[in-house]
């Protein structure tokens, strides 16, 4: 930490008390920040983890007691000024204050925005979404034998929920407008592997099927018919929580726009699902809704607020559990030009596939492969390796079949 930032940075305010916000707070303390840290979050409880909501919480393997991100003692040791159950309503960058919806003004010298995203919804009757602990518990109560569930959207979230619901004996219909689920993200061939897993587990997967609204007793499809279900889960993506920043002069464009240091403006940083930043490793602006990124970016934003000036250039990591498949992906797969399976086989659902974007290796996705097969690829992505060079070094036989 530079001496000048220590002198002028007495009060840090973090808005959003989840993975990114908490990591930022912890990093500030560990880096020697002795001033106040105010952590503001609109959920009532201390920071908890979301990925288990669609996995161990939904299937009942874990109770909510497994979710807190830190123990009470660890949180106490950080000496935070916590404001749980409070909503930031607006930001005044001239006065350097965050205005809460209860009228309180919270002044800051440095600000970290970590307000995440919220689910998109459909018009019509109320339906379930899955973002918070309450959402997960409400949905869980609707699953089981003799029940039916329509899941709108076969992205990772919808697919995980459908898998848990089917495993619990629920009759599940999974509705997806694209012809192959997740094709844009992970490629058609691998999307088809995941689609087949749903079919094998008795899920009625209906691709090429858009949903226009939720109706009582089901959802209306784009051909006008109704798919019936007792319960509807809408999992059609999310929107960044940036409304409270409107009028602040910060740039908002599908997220809070930040530079490669995670800075949105002098003294204002963004981290986690809400932040769109320039990742110099891939030479592109990205916003990723991945749990690991929330922590890594929270850490980077905190360090840069304290004056480190280190570009944030991670290899994004994402995992998803569906049925007995553990899917793990490193890199930036979106917009890839080619996917190649270099180990294992798609039909066994045990394989390692690598992604090319332009002339470089941009990603690796594996199901059921050991870390030691994945790690060399991960390192090559981090090193910005060219596609041809990475293939000939790491998978010479796959290169020969090109």
């Amino acid at each position: 930490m530079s001496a000048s930032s220590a002198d002028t940075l007495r009060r840090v305010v973090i808005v959003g008390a989840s993975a990114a916000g908490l990591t930022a707070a912890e990093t500030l303390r560990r880096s020697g920040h002795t001033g106040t840290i105010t952590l503001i979050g609109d959920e009532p409880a201390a920071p908890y983890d979301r990925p288990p909501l669609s996995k161990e919480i939904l299937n009942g393997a874990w109770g909510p007691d497994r979710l807190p991100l830190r123990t009470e003692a660890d949180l106490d040791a950080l000496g935070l000024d916590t404001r749980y159950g409070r909503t930031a309503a607006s930001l005044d960058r001239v006065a350097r204050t965050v205005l809460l919806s209860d009228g309180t003004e919270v002044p800051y010298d440095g600000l970290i925005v970590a307000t995440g995203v919220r689910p998109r919804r459909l018009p019509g009757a109320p339906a379930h979404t899955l973002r918070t602990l309450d959402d997960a518990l409400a949905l869980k109560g609707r699953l089981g034998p003799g029940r039916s569930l329509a899941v709108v959207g076969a992205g990772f979230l919808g697919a995980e929920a459908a898998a848990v619901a089917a495993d619990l004996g629920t009759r599940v219909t999974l509705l997806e407008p694209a012809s192959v689920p997740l094709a844009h993200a992970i490629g058609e061939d691998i999307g088809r592997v995941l689609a087949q897993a749903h079919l094998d587990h008795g899920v009625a997967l209906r691709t090429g099927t858009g949903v226009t609204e939720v109706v009582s007793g089901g959802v209306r499809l784009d051909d006008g018919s109704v798919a019936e279900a007792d319960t509807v889960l809408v999992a059609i993506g999310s929107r960044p929580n940036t409304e409270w920043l409107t009028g602040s002069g910060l740039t908002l464009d599908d997220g809070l726009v930040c530079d490669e240091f995670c800075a949105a403006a002098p003294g204002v940083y963004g981290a986690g699902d809400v932040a769109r930043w320039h990742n110099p490793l891939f030479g592109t602006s990205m916003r990723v809704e991945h749990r690991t990124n929330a922590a890594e970016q929270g850490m980077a934003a905190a360090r840069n607020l304290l004056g480190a000036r280190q570009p944030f250039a991670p290899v994004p990591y994402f995992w998803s559990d569906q049925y007995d498949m553990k899917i793990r992906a490193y890199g930036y797969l979106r917009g890839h030009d080619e996917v190649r399976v270099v180990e294992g086989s798609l039909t066994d659902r045990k394989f390692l596939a690598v992604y090319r974007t332009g002339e470089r290796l941009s990603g690796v996705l594996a199901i059921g492969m050991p870390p030691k097969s994945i790690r060399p690829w991960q390192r090559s992505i981090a090193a910005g390796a060219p596609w041809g060079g990475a293939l000939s070094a790491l998978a010479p036989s796959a290169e020969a079949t090109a």
Partner: protein
Amino acid sequence: MNLKVEVDVPKCVASGQCVMLAPEVFDQRDDDGMVILLDDTPPAELHDAVRESATVCPAAAIRLAES
């Protein structure tokens, strides 16, 4: 200062962040990638890397006790 490390293996999501940061302290199982704790009382020169691992672990599966 002593640093005692504990891992909550069922929580681990096999991201490998900890292994990248502190390979002397953490490893991953071959079959499912779950974390293996190699050294529960690492020497002082590794403390920063271990603390960073605990902070970035995407499953909050690494717990530290300082004494």
